[in-house]
């Protein structure tokens, strides 16, 4: 009994000692994988004046192994080391942040603790611009990049360095200011398994009906055992609410834009790239005229076609693990963004050929509202870097802040072609947004997709977060037969009206101007069919 007690005591002491030894923060953290993420707050090097915390996001965090296969990333770490060598008074601390967790963002920004440079979808920034949480990029974008050789693009204006100025300009907030730099580009495509296509005897589709036929054929394909082994296409909840909705919406509404694009011709520079784009004030006005509700036949049609498309997809949109289904050859197609290319390239057990095509256009056979114009671009900025209020913590004024200058300087350095190529082209996942840095060959198809017209709306990002959340969830529920189309339309109508009210409270739109523009387009509308009744009055 006594021996047992002694043993218990000794073992407890041993456990405590070992635990302490293990948990003791090491004095010199090596370059272990992932260590950058958990970098100890320890003392910076002597002589450091500026510590810039930089949350590079998913794609480039050194030490991360993309998709869990292959060797860890290190490109960004090298660039940061180069910068610190060049500016010994600056320490760049790479930090990790949860993806798409709004609670994180809000609490960090309120407490002024956010990393100086963060990576968020700029649409999430738009919600908060009136709170002075973010620093404008306008001046930075119009100034020369000091790390670009004289005479090269960017040596006069940073803007000139940007390869896709149109899409990049699309990130302007509703107040027409820029709050981010589009570091890279991403585009979606439909990946398909060539082996399955050959086995079933189908080819890349020419139009949407053809696409549906292919899907049906794959769905009906029966193997020797009498099973239907293939899911035609793998889709997720976000794919439907974000990409699919905007694409299908454009297919039906592009032909009536002459009657409803109320801001046409107002901002020539933006118009160059964002032709037909519907802003929140236009959508708000159009809703009052009966659009985007139960009286708008096109609106119903969008969701009807989505429902039809969804029948070809996996059973669950929310808990799907599409990568797994695609690589194990139970899914024939997968609608995914360009980083998936990398996954397919490094998966050594893959054992099949694959290709990529873009969503094919609707024809009259799909719907009487379709005119057969190609599907628009849905991708765009992949990683977007914002400068937060932490960067101006020294003076509180962006004009005088030395700290902000250093942060900007680091971003210039990061975007200089010689550094940029080390980071973005380390793996073929994202497309370059810098002139003079080539696209990685495996991503070439996506680069071609990006040359299409830009989409005419961004439903998931135009209104407040309550609307996005409701749209995302209710669309999923409707597509999974949880509610009927009428119920779904009611939900969206109600939430859209609430969202419009909220945004109008914050920033009243110029109703008179919108009304004038609306009236001037009456003749154009008179020739169109099946608009809501109000549109003809």
């Amino acid at each position, binding site marked *: 009994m006594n021996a047992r007690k002694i043993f218990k005591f000794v073992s407890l002491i041993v456990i405590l000692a070992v635990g302490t030894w293990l948990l003791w923060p090491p004095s010199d953290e090596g370059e272990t994988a992932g260590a950058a993420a958990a970098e100890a707050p320890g003392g910076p090097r002597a002589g450091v004046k500026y510590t810039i915390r930089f949350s590079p996001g998913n794609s480039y965090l050194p030490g991360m192994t993309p998709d869990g296969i292959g060797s860890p990333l290190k490109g960004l770490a090298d660039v940061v080391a180069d910068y610190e060598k060049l500016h010994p008074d600056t320490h760049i601390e790479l930090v990790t942040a949860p993806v798409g967790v709004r*609670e994180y963002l809000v609490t960090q920004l309120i407490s002024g603790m956010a990393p100086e440079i963060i990576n968020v979808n700029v649409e999430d920034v738009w919600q908060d611009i009136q709170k002075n949480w973010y620093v404008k990029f306008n001046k930075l974008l119009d100034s020369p990049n000091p790390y670009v050789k004289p005479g090269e693009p960017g040596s006069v204006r940073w803007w000139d360095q940007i390869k896709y100025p149109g899409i990049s300009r699309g990130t302007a907030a509703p107040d027409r200011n820029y709050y981010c730099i589009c570091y890279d580009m991403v585009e979606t495509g439909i990946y398909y398994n060539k082996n399955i296509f050959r086995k079933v005897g189908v080819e890349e589709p020419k139009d949407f009906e053809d696409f549906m036929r292919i899907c049906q054929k794959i769905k009906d394909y029966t193997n020797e055992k009498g099973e239907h082994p293939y899911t035609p296409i793998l889709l997720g909840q976000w794919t439907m609410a974000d990409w699919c909705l905007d694409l299908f919406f454009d297919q039906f509404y592009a032909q009536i834009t002459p009657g409803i694009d109320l801001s046409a011709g107002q901002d020539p520079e933006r118009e160059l790239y964002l032709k037909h784009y519907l802003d929140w004030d236009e959508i708000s006005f159009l809703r009052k005229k009966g659009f985007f509700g139960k009286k708008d036949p096109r609106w119903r049609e969008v969701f009807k076609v989505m429902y039809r498309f969804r029948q070809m997809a996996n059973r669950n949109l929310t808990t799907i693990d599409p990568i797994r289904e695609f690589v194990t050859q139970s899914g024939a197609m997968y609608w995914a963004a360009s980083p998936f290319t990398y996954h397919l390239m490094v998966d050594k057990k893959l054992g099949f050929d694959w290709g990529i095509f873009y969503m094919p256009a609707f024809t009259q056979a799909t719907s009487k509202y379709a005119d057969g114009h190609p599907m628009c671009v849905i991708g765009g900025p992949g990683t977007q870097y914002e400068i937060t209020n932490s960067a101006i913590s020294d003076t509180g004024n962006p004009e005088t802040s030395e700290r902000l200058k250093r942060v900007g300087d680091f971003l210039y350095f990061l975007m200089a072609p010689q550094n940029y190529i080390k980071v973005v082209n380390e793996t073929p996942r994202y497309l370059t947004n810098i002139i003079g840095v080539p696209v990685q060959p495996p991503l070439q198809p996506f680069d071609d997709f990006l040359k299409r017209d830009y989409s005419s709306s961004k439903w998931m990002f135009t209104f407040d977060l*309550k609307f996005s959340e409701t749209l995302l969830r209710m669309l999923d529920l409707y597509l999974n037969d*949880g509610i009927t189309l009428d119920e779904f339309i009611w939900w969206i109508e109600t939430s859209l009206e609430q969202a419009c009210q909220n945004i109008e409270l914050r920033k009243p739109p110029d109703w008179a101007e919108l009304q004038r523009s609306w009236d001037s387009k009456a003749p154009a509308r008179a020739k169109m069919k099946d608009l809501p009744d109000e549109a003809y009055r």
Partner: protein
Amino acid sequence: MKPTDSTDIYRDRHYRLWFTLGCYGLLAATVILLTVFIYLPVAWAFTKSLYQFEIGGDSQFVGLGNYREFFNDPTLWPSFGHMLFLTSFAVCVRLSMPLIVAKLIHSVRHEKWRYFYRILFLVPIVVPGVAVQLIWQGLIYADKGLLNEALMALGRGNWTHGWLSNPSTALISCAFVGFPWIGGFEVLIYYAGLSGIPDSVNEAALLEGCVGIRKFFKIDIPMVLSQLKLILMLTIIGGVQGFEGMLILTKGGPGFETTVPGLWMYYNAFSFQRMGYACAIGVLLFVLIFGLTVLNFKYFKSSEEIQAIQ
């Protein structure tokens, strides 16, 4: 029998004053902490529920506007139904399963084995709660997760479901998290209750031939009544205000099919930035819990009386 000197001290008014002040001093930390971190926020919640405001923005007095919005909120009322279902389910299983297991372990003869089994059933508590939810969400209920793969392996491919994403199975799947609900400290509590039964009672039962199932219902359950009540109370309170599990498991989806009031409050507060409305939901939940506590208080008394009569 009181010693004279201490009685004198207690009679001394001067001493009494200092004594009382000393007590206050020692209790001060407790009281201050409670005032600052509980009473103040509660008062704040009641006040702010009359405002419309977002963090970092301005606030605007709207009177009972937030409370009026309850009636137009198509998400709130169904969420109470979900909560009711989940809570009653949790009550049923947490009162029965761990008790059965505790009884089984308790009836094992050798202390060594009992110790071993107790440790075995402790494994689910030592894994952080968040991890348990993440494991259920990502490994068990996933489309190609343990459950579906096991069904496939058993040749029941047509029984597979998108457990958490299918509107018809999501809620029940949430209730089944933790199956068979015997990990956790309930087993320990019941076990302690069972080992607290005096030997005399057990011997009397044995003499009267009251063994096995009959003993379980006639002797064991009445003897662990206070433990059962404790778990009942904790489960109900946890069920009404708990939503962390839902946040991790389903985020209240698909649609709002598994949203509970607490989660809806959380979304309004931290995602939609509608702090005032969130506070109003909090007040509503408080009213509910207050009512339950009052009921429980009454019930409590009566059950104690029953025991006294016995």
